[in-house]
C-alpha cells in the first residue's frame, strides 16, 4: 500500500476507453453485487473499475481509505463515493441502487418464505440456518482479522480496542458515549506534532 505511486503519473490510460455512462455505472455495480456473493466487494469493485479504465489504482485507494472513515457499510459507501466521483450525485444514487438491488430481491424472497410460514420454520430448515449461522461467525472472525492487525500497529491501539470491547460487551455501555470517549482519547494520543 505504501508504494510510491503518484496519481498524476497514472492519470492518462494508454488506450482511449469509453467514458462512464449512467447505464454503464448501474451495470457495473449490479455486476459487482452478483459476483460478490460471500464478500470481497471492494476487490471486485476495483477490478471492474480498472479494467474499464474509469479509475486508476491510486484513485481507488483514496476512495477505499475514505470509505473506511465514514460510518456505514464499507462496500456501499465505496459505491456511493465512486459514483459521486465519476458522475456526481446522480452517479452516487445509481451506484448504490445497483449494488443493493440484486441482494434486496434475493433477501426479500427468502425472508417472505422463512418469516411468512404460519407454524414457524420446518425443523430441517431451522437446523440448516443454525449451521449457516455458525459458519457466518467464522466469516465475521476473518473479516475482523485485518482490522485487528492494523489496530495492533497503532500506538495504544490494542489497549483502546480491549477497553471498547469490555465497555460494549461486558458493561453494555451506550455506543455513542464509547465512540466519543475513545475518539477523544485517540485524538489526544495521536495529535499532529507541531512543525509537521
Amino acid at each position, binding site marked *: 500500500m505504501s508504494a510510491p505511486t503518484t496519481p498524476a503519473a497514472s492519470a492518462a490510460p494508454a488506450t482511449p476507453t469509453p467514458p462512464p455512462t449512467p447505464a454503464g455505472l448501474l451495470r457495473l455495480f449490479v455486476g459487482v453485487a452478483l459476483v460478490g*456473493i*460471500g*464478500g*470481497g466487494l471492494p476487490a471486485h469493485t476495483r477490478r471492474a473499475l480498472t479494467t474499464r479504465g474509469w479509475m486508476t489504482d491510486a484513485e481507488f485507494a483514496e*476512495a477505499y481509505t*475514505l470509505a*473506511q*472513515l*465514514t*460510518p*456505514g*457499510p464499507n*462496500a*456501499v*459507501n465505496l459505491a*456511493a*463515493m465512486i459514483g*459521486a*466521483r465519476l458522475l456526481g450525485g446522480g452517479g*452516487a444514487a445509481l451506484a448504490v441502487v445497483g*449494488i*443493493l438491488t*440484486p*441482494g*434486496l430481491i434475493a*433477501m*426479500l424472497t427468502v*425472508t*417472505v418464505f*422463512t418469516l411468512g410460514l404460519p407454524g414457524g420454520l420446518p425443523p430441517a*430448515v431451522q437446523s440448516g*440456518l*443454525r*449451521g*449457516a*449461522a*455458525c*459458519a457466518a*461467525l*467464522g*466469516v*465475521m472472525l*476473518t*473479516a475482523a482479522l485485518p*482490522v*485487528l492487525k492494523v489496530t495492533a500497529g497503532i500506538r495504544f*491501539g490494542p489497549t*483502546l*480496542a480491549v477497553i471498547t*470491547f469490555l465497555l*460494549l460487551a461486558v458493561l453494555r455501555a451506550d*455506543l455513542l458515549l464509547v*465512540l466519543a470517549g*475513545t475518539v477523544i482519547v*485517540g*485524538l489526544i494520543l*495521536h*495529535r*499532529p506534532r507541531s512543525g*509537521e
Partner: protein
Amino acid sequence: MTAEPLDILLTFARLGLVSFGGANLPEIERVLVEQKGWITPQLLANGFALGQVMPGPNMLAMTHYGFAAGGWLGAFAATLGFYGPTALLSAAAMTAWQRLSRWRWLPSLRSALLPFGAGVLLAGVLVLARGSIHSPAGALIAAASFALLWRTCVNAALIVVGAAVLGAVLGL
C-alpha cells in the same frame, strides 16, 4: 406485532450512522432485541447468516430484520434508513476529499477510529456467538469455517451453504 414504518426508518438510520468498518452487531442487538423487542436473538443470527449467501453487501440482514419488525413497509424502511444517510454522507465526503486529504488531523482521526472499530468487531463476534452457538457441534462448525476461510481461498458463500447442509443433516 407491527412497528411504525417511521420508527423503523429512524431506528435503522441511527444504526447505520453508528456502524464503522462493518456491522455494528452489539448496537443492533441492544436496540433491536433488547430495547425495541422487534427481533429475537435467534432471528438476529438467522438474518446475519442469510446475508452471507446473498449477492451484494452482507448487511442486507437489515432488510430481514425490517421485515420481521414491520412487514413489507418495514423491510423498505429499514433498508432505506440503514443505507440512505450513510451513502449520502459518503458521496458528500468524496466531493470534499481533495481538501480533506491535506488536513493534518486526518491520520489522527484514523488512528483514533480504528481501535474503536476493532473493539466493536470483537464485541460483535461475542453477540453472534451467543445467538448462534448452542452446542459443541455448532462450535466445531464455526471453528472449521474460520480455519477454512483463513487457510484456503474457498468462497465464503460456499462455506456458509455447506454449513447449512451439515446443520440440517445433523439436526443442530
